[in-house]
Structures are given as structure tokens and as C-alpha cells.
């Protein structure tokens, strides 16, 4: 037990969750809710919060009992722990944001089957101490939620021409007038963005954008390295450009 593990580096855990190993953009886990309920920002935030809470709590709990869990029942035990927290999240949403609970419907209980959560519990929390596990769950959740919210915003703007509509479902009457008619009042809506194909398209474009950014960073890093003077370049064929 307690072998020194590079993943105890808190900065790296954060970077992994938010960007490098983002559950939605890199691991491509939890795509079902990602694609199904991101028709608007409020849905995305609601599901993002619930998923983040469950991720953090289940990582914490799994990490706490990791030495008591025999290898043979590790997965079932993890699923039971996750199901407990999902039930808590569901009851909480039912109590405090009932309308949003109705909108999200089956996708709240379905957080149990979100493979991002079981993936983190199994790949990280069952092998690491409590604090890194909690942070990992939190950061993975925040990374997942961020992608949910971006997809929700893009789909809402293109599909309905608004942003932050129905925020009162989550934040109460304070947010009733937050709807921004970004594309004007008489925008008739581009329905494909709100329908499931729109979710696939936006998610795909986001993944492409992330890869492009990573490639750009990589290129800049390499560009700095390769033109060091005195490096030996052997001319083989053709012209040097």
C-alpha cells in the first residue's frame, strides 16, 4: 500500500481534470447526459452540479474505504456508493429545484451509469489517499460541467437565439429575467442545434477545437526547441527552405 504516486501532485490533478484528461473532451465518458440534456445553459448547469457533487463525494467515499474493499467486489461496491450519492442528489434536486428536476427527468438517476464517475472511482479513488481523490473528483466534475455548459450555451444560442433562458428553474425567481435574446426577438430558431444531432456536432467541434489548441501549443514549444543554433541538421535531399 501507499506506494509513492506521481498523481499526488495537486497541480497535475487539477490540470488533468480540467484540460488534459477532461472526461468529456478526452476520455469521452458520460456522453449520454452530455448529449441528451445540453439543450440549454440551465439544464447543463443543473446536471453539471449534480454530477460534480456525486463525483467528488463518491471519490471521497471510495478512497476512504479502499483498504477494506476486496478486489473481487470493488466494482459492485463502488457502484453501490455512487448510487447512494446519486439518490441523495436526486432527492436534493427534488426538494430545492423541483422544476429543473422535472426537466432533467431520467438523466438525474442515470448519473449512476455515467462511466466518468465509475471510471474515476476505479482508476483513481480506489488507489489514492482521500485528499487527492476528493480533488480529482472535484476537478473532473468541474471539467465535465464546463464542457456541458459550453455545449449548452452554443446549442441554446444557435437553436433558440437566447442565452440563460429559464434560469429561474435553478436559481429561483431572482433569475427570471436573465434571458438574453442574443440573436434578436424574431429569430425563428435553428432546430437541429437543439435536437440530438446538434449535440453531436457541437461536441465534435469542441473536441476538434481542443485538439487544435493542443497542437498549437505543442508546435510553439517545438518551434522554440528546433531552431537552437548549433543543432546538427544533415541535408539529405532537396532544398532547405
Amino acid at each position, binding site marked *: 500500500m501507499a506506494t509513492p504516486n506521481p498523481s499526488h501532485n495537486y497541480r497535475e490533478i487539477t490540470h488533468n481534470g480540467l484540460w488534459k484528461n477532461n472526461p468529456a473532451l478526452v476520455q469521452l465518458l458520460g456522453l449520454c447526459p452530455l448529449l441528451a440534456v445540453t439543450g440549454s445553459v440551465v439544464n447543463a448547469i443543473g446536471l453539471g452540479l449534480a454530477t460534480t457533487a456525486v463525483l467528488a463525494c463518491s471519490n471521497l467515499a471510495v478512497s476512504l474505504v479502499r483498504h477494506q474493499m476486496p478486489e473481487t467486489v470493488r466494482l459492485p461496491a463502488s457502484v453501490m456508493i455512487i448510487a447512494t450519492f446519486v439518490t441523495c442528489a436526486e432527492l436534493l434536486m427534488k426538494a430545492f429545484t423541483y422544476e429543473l428536476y422535472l426537466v432533467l427527468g431520467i438523466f438525474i438517476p442515470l448519473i449512476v451509469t455515467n462511466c466518468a464517475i465509475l471510471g474515476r472511482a476505479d482508476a483513481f479513488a480506489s488507489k489514492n489517499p482521500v485528499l487527492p481523490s476528493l480533488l480529482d473528483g472535484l476537478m473532473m466534475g468541474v471539467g465535465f460541467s464546463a464542457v456541458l455548459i459550453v455545449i449548452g450555451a452554443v446549442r441554446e444560442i444557435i437553436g433558440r437565439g437566447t442565452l440563460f433562458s429559464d434560469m429561474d428553474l435553478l436559481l429561483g425567481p431572482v433569475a427570471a429575467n436573465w434571458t438574453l435574446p442574443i440573436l434578436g426577438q424574431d429569430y*425563428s*430558431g*435553428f*432546430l*437541429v*442545434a437543439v*435536437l440530438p*444531432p446538434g449535440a453531436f*456536432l457541437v461536441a465534435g467541434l469542441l473536441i476538434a477545437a481542443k485538439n487544435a489548441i493542443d497542437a498549437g501549443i505543442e508546435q510553439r514549444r517545438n518551434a522554440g526547441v528546433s531552431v537552437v543554433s548549433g543543432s546538427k541538421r544533415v541535408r539529405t535531399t532537396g532544398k532547405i527552405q
Partner: protein
Amino acid sequence: MSLMRVTSPHAHSGQSTSKVMLQVAAATVPGVLALVVFFGPGVLINIALCALTALGTEAAIMKLRGRPIAFYLKDYSALVTALLLGIALPPYCPWWIPVIGSVSAILLAKQLYGGMGYNPFNPAMVGYVVLLISFPVEMTRWVAPAELIQGMPGLGETFSLIFGNMNVDGFTRATPLEIVRHNQSTILAQLYEMEPMFNTGTVAGLGWEMANFGFLLGGLFLLFRRLITWHGPVAMLATLTLLSIVFYDGGSSLSEGSPLLHLFSGATMLGAFFIVTDPVSGCTSNKGRLIFGAGVGLLVFVIRAWGAYPDAVAFAVLLMNFAAPFIDNYTLPRTYGHKAARKATDLEEQ
């Protein structure tokens, strides 16, 4: 792009992509002419808008991808996509319909997958379906044949229909397929007598039957020029005919329409000869083409008869595009001198 395993000697047909595409475009002329005669010049404006947008999108993406722009524009594949989409769109629809449709077709369905020859789905049909599910109101308003209304929109009216905000409702009527679909309380013979769309036409609705006949002629030209094989179209039309005979029941109120209605209305002939025969998104072997065409015919009838949409060629073709690689895998032609391979994946494992 049919990479068939046939042995040498190979005789070159003298064709190139651009020549093929131009002949396909020429083959649509009779059908487009019929559309213009019966439904007015709106379809030409659609085609022009689609062509401009499609070529513009193609050029922009080629520039982004750092490819030679003129080379790829000159294969005319974007032009044919735009042409087929423009024909499929309702005449006199607002200008942004063809524009959004062509951008979706070229950007989403073609270039995101790698461009010419790499698209798993028929780009024109993807453009059409994106429009149909996004703008159901605009996409289901077909103008009536000129004879049935006070006349086609004039020049000024055409302009304000397409670029202004004039409503096209004054010029529209239900299409033959919609009429049959929505009148399930009268027997077909009565319907044909009552409806001006049918009693001024011959078998499948005024205008529509001629347009379909035009596309049939164009298709026969393509067959004659050996640009397409008979397998896809014949399989699709035969399946559609067979199913409509089975469910015709002599024309009761619950009948799904006569075989002739199914063959010569909606987008049947355009689909059979110009969409099903797409060499990129369809099947590769002749046996595969038979299965592909039959699948399209089956789906067209099922969706027309029991689905939520009056016509179904675009959905049917896209669904079969999904199945095309699978069909190809199991319909590998036998190479001369070799034993028949059961499926292509077996060969790869060797």
C-alpha cells in the same frame, strides 16, 4: 470511387470525375425543365443559390485546408451536390434555406469527413435533412402547379418571397403524397375525382408525374452512358412497386396509394437515379447495390406509409448509407482465380 477487385487488362473509359459530374448535371435537365414548366422558375433560383454557396464553402474550406482551390472546384462534385439539393428544396423558399442547406451539405457532410470521395453520407441528402428537421414549416410548403392557382408569382413577388418576408402560403397546395396521406376517409377513386391535383394530372398528381418522368429520362441517359449501373435504381423501384402493390388493396380509404403514385410522385425517380447511385456513399459491388437499392425502396415505402413524413427518400438514403460499409463487407466480389471470400474482414485478417 469503386475500387473493385477485377483483374487486368483494364480498358480506360476515358471518363474523369469532372466529365462524369457534368454528365450527371446534364441528365437532370429534363426533370428540372418539367419542374420549371409546372412550378415556375423558383427551382432555378434555388439551384443558383445552392451552387453559389456550395462553391463558396468548398473554396473557403480548401483554402483552410491548404489544398489547391481551383483543382477541387473543377471536379464539379460540389456543383452536383448543390444541383441535387436545389432540386429537392421547395421552390420560392426564403433565400437562407438553400444557403444553410448547402453549407451543411459541403461543410458537415463532405469536408469534415475529408472531402470528395470520403463522405459516408450523401451530402445533398444531409443538407436536405438538416433543413427538414430544423425548418419544418418552410420546408413543407410546396407551390402548387401554375394551372391550379391564379398563376405563378411575378418577378416582384418572386423577389419578395425569396429575399423579403412575403408569405408563400398564397401559392402553395398540399403535394400528392400529402393529399393521399391526409385523406384517409375517402376511397382513392373518389379522391382522384375530387382533388384538382389529381383530376388534372394523369396518375400521380399534376406536375409531379412529369418531373418524375423527366428524372426517369435523365436516369436512362446515365444508364445509357454507363455512368451508373442498373442495380441500385431497379432494386429500389422494384421494392417500392412490390410493397405498394401488396398494400394497395384496390384503393380503399386506408390504402397507402397506388404503385404508380409511389413511382411517379415525390422524389422517387430523382432518388432512384441520382441519389441511390452515388458512388461514394452507396455500395461498391453490384450485389451490394441491389441490397442498398432494395433497402432504400423498403424504407421509402415504410416511412411514406406509416412514418411521420409524407416523403422519405432523404431519410431512407441516409439510413442505408449507414448500412453501406456493412453490406460491402458481406458482398465482396470474387476475384478471378481465388476462392470466394465470405467477407472483406476475413481477407484483412489473413
